[in-house]
């Protein structure tokens, strides 16, 4: 066990230190203002945009800012005196050629390592059977997908993913109110855990408990967000990312209206749980929601981490799904790598050499032979088909068991 853990950590350290996505520098630059006493980062960045070297908005929710900023304050003796200058360096060439870049990357990704390993232990505890728990532990530690997504992309989604998994464990232990609390905290980092709340409500045994299960996560999320409510906050967080992509119109029904496919299926799942499921299995609904989101939205590769622990649990619970899940995982990772965005692929290797800027992206390489958008669409459609089948099987098997 010890040897396996050491190997898992070594692999993660290698990817963490050498692969670089520019987002980690951007959001850590923004989080560095906490050390200077800035609490409302949303307004601060917009008000000081003209004088700041990096102009991007802070698109995450407040807990991300406070956790990253707090960690930076703790880690500053290790990061050294040149760290803040590096964060603020808008020249992408000199920043990446800084010899300290490997140390910075490793230290900045250290919290991810801690949470990543903790998730492995949570999965170990998730199963009543020791054999199944150990299998989940190994799959989590030794699947290339999460190592790549967490450490190459410097993925802050690990925070809500970790807390959401705790929430699922609490549901398993029938501590639903604590699970609701955990979802609210997770939403303080990123919004997506709130999508699970409508289904959590159905787990309540009385009307009072149902109301509390709905109110607690939104209440906690509100308590975290309300102090920052402003035009800047709405512009930076609510209007970006998930909220806009998930509600992308699907097909028109005339007069400017359209049916949003992802929301349609979400709604069908919700009403299905409400009207037909007397004892809803939260795990099935949560993973189905995520499969729907990934099937019908233009997702960021970092989002795939949301579903990763659930996929591991599913692969262990239903081993016959292991290979289909592996193939779908491959497709889902390849789709975003085909986006026309250098930082998703070639630029991850800029810490080795900036010469790689001269290489074509996979998008450009594919373009010479075939329409890359069409290839993305084909892969996404295949993924959606597989994902919907797995969702169907989840509920069909569940009811027949």
């Amino acid at each position, binding site marked *: 066990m010890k040897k396996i853990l050491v190997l898992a950590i070594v692999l993660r350290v290698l990817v963490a230190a050498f692969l670089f996505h520019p987002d980690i520098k951007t959001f850590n630059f923004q989080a560095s203002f906490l050390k200077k006493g800035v609490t409302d980062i949303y307004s601060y960045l917009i008000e000081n945009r003209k004088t700041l070297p990096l102009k991007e908005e802070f698109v995450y929710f407040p807990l991300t800012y406070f956790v990253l900023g707090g960690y930076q304050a703790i880690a500053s003796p290790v990061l*050294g005196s040149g760290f803040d200058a590096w964060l603020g360096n808008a020249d992408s060439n000199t920043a990446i050629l800084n010899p300290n870049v490997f140390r910075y990357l490793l230290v900045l990704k250290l919290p991810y390592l801690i949470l990543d390993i903790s998730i492995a232990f949570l999965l170990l505890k998730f199963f009543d059977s020791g054999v199944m728990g150990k299998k989940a532990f190994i799959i989590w530690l030794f699947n290339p997908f999460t*190592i790549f997504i967490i450490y190459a992309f410097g993925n802050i989604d690990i925070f809500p993913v970790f807390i959401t998994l705790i929430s699922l464990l609490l549901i398993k232990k029938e501590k639903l109110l604590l699970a609701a609390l955990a979802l609210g905290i997770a939403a303080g980092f990123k919004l997506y855990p709130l999508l699970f709340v409508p289904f959590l409500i159905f787990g309540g045994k009385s009307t009072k408990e149902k109301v509390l299960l709905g109110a607690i996560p939104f209440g906690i999320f509100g308590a975290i967000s309300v102090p920052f409510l402003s035009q800047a906050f709405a512009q930076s967080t609510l209007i970006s990312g998930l909220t806009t992509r998930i509600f992308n119109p699907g097909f028109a029904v005339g007069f400017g209206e359209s049916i949003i496919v992802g929301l349609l299926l979400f709604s069908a799942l919700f009403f299905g749980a409400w009207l037909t499921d007397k004892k809803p299995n939260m795990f099935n609904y949560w993973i189905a929601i995520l499969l729907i989101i990934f099937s019908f939205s233009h997702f960021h590769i970092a989002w795939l981490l949301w579903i990763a622990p659930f996929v591991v649990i599913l692969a262990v619970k239903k081993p016959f799904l292991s290979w289909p899940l592996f193939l779908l995982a491959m497709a889902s990772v390849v789709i975003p790598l085909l986006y026309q965005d250098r930082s998703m692929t070639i630029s991850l290797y800029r810490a080795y050499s900036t010469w790689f800027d001269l290489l074509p992206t996979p998008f450009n390489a594919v373009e010479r032979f075939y329409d890359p958008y069409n290839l993305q669409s084909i892969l996404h459609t295949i993924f959606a088909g597989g994902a919907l089948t797995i969702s169907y099987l989840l509920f069909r098997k569940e009811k027949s068991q």
Partner: protein
Amino acid sequence: MIWLTTASVLTLVFVVPAVLASALKMIPVNIQPGYNSDIRLSIYKIRGFSQKFVAKTGNLTAIGTSIRNPNLKNKTDVIFSLYDNGNLIRTSILNGQNLEDGSFVKFVFPVIPDSLGKEYTFTITSPGAGPEETIEVFIIGEPEPTSGITEYTYEEEVHPGGIPLVSYSQPESKLKTINSVYSSWLSRLLSPGSQKSE
């Protein structure tokens, strides 16, 4: 599974950079010199631009610089002509349609094997463009040793300096390129004190 993932990660970290390095068809010789984006010259019709520079590399195969194409109005040919002692030796043509405003543009041409230390002149023209379809190059007002620029001619007047250019050479061999990439990476990784906090 453990060994498959271990092999995948080691490949990702140690082998993929070599594969990427071996795919490089050219490598930059210098970093683009800094420039003031307010100092620019317009190129259209007979108003061309001529630059003298000393090649800092053998196997010269491209010259890159930043070019403005305001409002993407220029959709005509932008012609790069390279001269050695007044003789036209290479030409590279791009279309304005492919020039994003302010983007870094490379004029690629067949390799010149014995280019190291030789003085060349190149011109950039856009004879098909009218005054409304002008493209603009940025100007540095003095010679710049790392890029090799010495002087430029604009509207028949000679001035010191020129455009902030990057020269590119064709790698001698894939193995040498891979070696250079890993050497640069390791030298930064192992540079004294780099992995210790100050």
